């Protein structure tokens, strides 16, 4: 009895945070700074800033297979992750899960891109950082879709200010009501083809603009981190800590308070509920290395294991009080899954500016922010909400700017350094997805992973409204380029 009490005492904290990705890193920092003894649980391995970025300084010729995954790797270990082909490379694959180790059921095709390690996907995200507006937060109520957001822009604004100032977001103030301006560092620069397109769009359209991406690659030093050197190799980990990741920004601050206990290899299985106290008392984990089950206790619990990670944990937390998952009397847990829809746009080659180049590799692109269904004038008959056209201009064969930098290799690679091709511009539109109760996930208890955890079934598809938006996602991209003589 005494021993048990002592063990419970040793495993008791003020707060528990589940996950160390973008949200978990922030929860760890905030709670530790406010003086709470905080246990931070991460299912994957440790990744220390700098120390654990093995590829960050490799030269292109030091990386095998032109940095691409081999057909065998794709087939055996990364059939899903490799679908994000611009991000999952020889130099970054250690920051993505092996699908072979982490199975799930695709009731309908669904690309679930994951990174299970300290830092989660904060290491590999594309760093675009945009605020929501009241046009977004009021839309459900206005249109009778799903449920109304229980907050509005004025509730979020001071917190956007706070996090932007802390992480550093570069961007241009555009004064758009659909995309509120923030506390920005100076924007990146447009190259000549983008400036040309910006000007032509301003001449040809009154409903839209082309502007710079808003990105967490810092253009000035912030909080002791030095500014970005425009290498656009961010997904390998940044030697300067010049983009936001949990590893470079939030976790070191949490650590420095002395209040954080970070425990990698800790797969949270469920949350423990006490029906007399009507509270959660702690969590149950499986140690990924020893397979041991351990309980930890705390007064508050922050779930930051990513959308589907957290949802799996809550669904797995069953008790007499909550037979269908913790806090799920509504029956909505696991439903209304949304994802952006993209991979549609246009590409154009421009005849001109043959004598102009650019220096470095800007780690972001340009964007035409949503220009549909903003007001009466821009109302569309066929669909609700809207999309934005993301893009970037580059010289073929020359270092590509924008997000999807690709390397040529071998002889092509050498040639491309001396003979840049024509300028081209690429648009990729990114659209909103409506919540729908029938887009859902559930646990498959028949099939378990190697730690005995039920695997997730994902049953989601894009529906009428998303499909109705896609023709204009493509035609608007093509039209804007044609209007500029591409």
């Amino acid at each position, binding site marked *: 009895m005494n021993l048990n009490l002592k063990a419970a005492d040793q495993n008791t904290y003020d707060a528990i945070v589940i*996950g160390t990705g973008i949200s978990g890193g922030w929860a760890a920092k905030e709670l530790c700074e*406010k003086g709470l003894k905080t246990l931070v649980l991460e299912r994957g391995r440790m990744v220390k800033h700098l120390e654990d970025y093995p590829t960050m300084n490799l030269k292109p010729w030091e990386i095998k297979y032109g940095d691409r995954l081999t057909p065998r790797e794709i087939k055996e270990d990364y059939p899903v992750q490799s679908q994000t082909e611009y991000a999952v490379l020889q130099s970054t694959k250690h920051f993505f899960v092996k699908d072979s180790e982490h199975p799930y059921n695709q009731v309908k095709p669904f690309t679930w891109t994951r990174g299970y390690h300290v830092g989660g996907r904060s290491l590999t995200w594309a760093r675009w950082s945009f605020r929501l507006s009241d046009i977004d937060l009021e839309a459900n109520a206005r249109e009778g879709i799903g449920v109304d957001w229980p907050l509005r822009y004025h509730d979020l604004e001071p917190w956007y200010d706070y996090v932007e100032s802390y992480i550093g977001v570069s961007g241009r103030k555009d004064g758009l009501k659909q995309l509120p301006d923030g506390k920005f560092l100076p924007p990146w620069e447009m190259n000549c083809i983008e400036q040309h397109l910006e000007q032509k769009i301003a001449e040809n359209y009154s409903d839209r603009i082309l502007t710079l991406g808003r990105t967490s690659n810092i253009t000035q030093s912030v909080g002791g981190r030095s500014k970005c050197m425009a290498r656009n190799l961010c997904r390998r980990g940044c030697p300067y800590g010049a983009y936001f990741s949990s590893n470079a920004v939030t976790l070191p601050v949490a650590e420095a308070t002395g209040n954080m206990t970070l425990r990698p290899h800790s797969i949270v299985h469920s949350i423990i509920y006490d029906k007399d106290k009507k509270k959660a008392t702690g969590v149950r984990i499986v140690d990924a290395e020893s397979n041991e089950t351990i309980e930890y206790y705390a007064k508050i619990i*922050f779930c*930051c294991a990513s959308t589907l990670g957290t949802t799996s944990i809550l669904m797995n937390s069953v008790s007499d009080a909550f037979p269908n998952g913790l806090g799920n009397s509504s029956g909505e847990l696991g439903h*209304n899954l949304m994802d952006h829809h993209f991979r549609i746009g246009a590409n154009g080659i421009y005849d001109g500016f043959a004598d102009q180049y650019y220096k470095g590799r800007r780690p972001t692109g340009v964007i035409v922010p949503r220009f549909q269904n903003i007001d009466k004038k821009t109302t569309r008959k066929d669909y609700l909400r809207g999309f934005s056209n993301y893009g970037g201009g580059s010289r073929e064969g020359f270092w590509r700017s924008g997000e999807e930098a690709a390397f040529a290799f071998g002889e092509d690679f050498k040639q491309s350094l001396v003979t840049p091709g024509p300028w081209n511009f690429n648009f990729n539109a990114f659209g909103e997805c409506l919540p729908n109760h029938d887009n859902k996930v559930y646990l498959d208890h028949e099939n378990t992973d190697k730690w005995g955890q039920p695997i997730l079934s994902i049953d989601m598809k894009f529906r009428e409204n998303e499909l109705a938006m896609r023709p204009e996602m493509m035609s608007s991209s093509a039209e804007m380029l044609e209007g500029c003589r591409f």
Partner: protein
Amino acid sequence: MGTARMGKDPKSSVLNRWNQLHEVPNVFVTDGSCMASSSWQNPSLTYMALTARACNYAVDQMKKQNL
């Protein structure tokens, strides 16, 4: 996004306006599962803002002995 959505009514949503489970107030969810709609915007900055806001609220409530 969206699989533990925020909302005003516990009958149709999982989380309240402070990202707390309606039915279990000492559990907070601040990742993408809280989203009531997706918008076109990349969402992570919003997760950061909601997380910082919920942490501030949680610690405040602990001080007031409400949690």
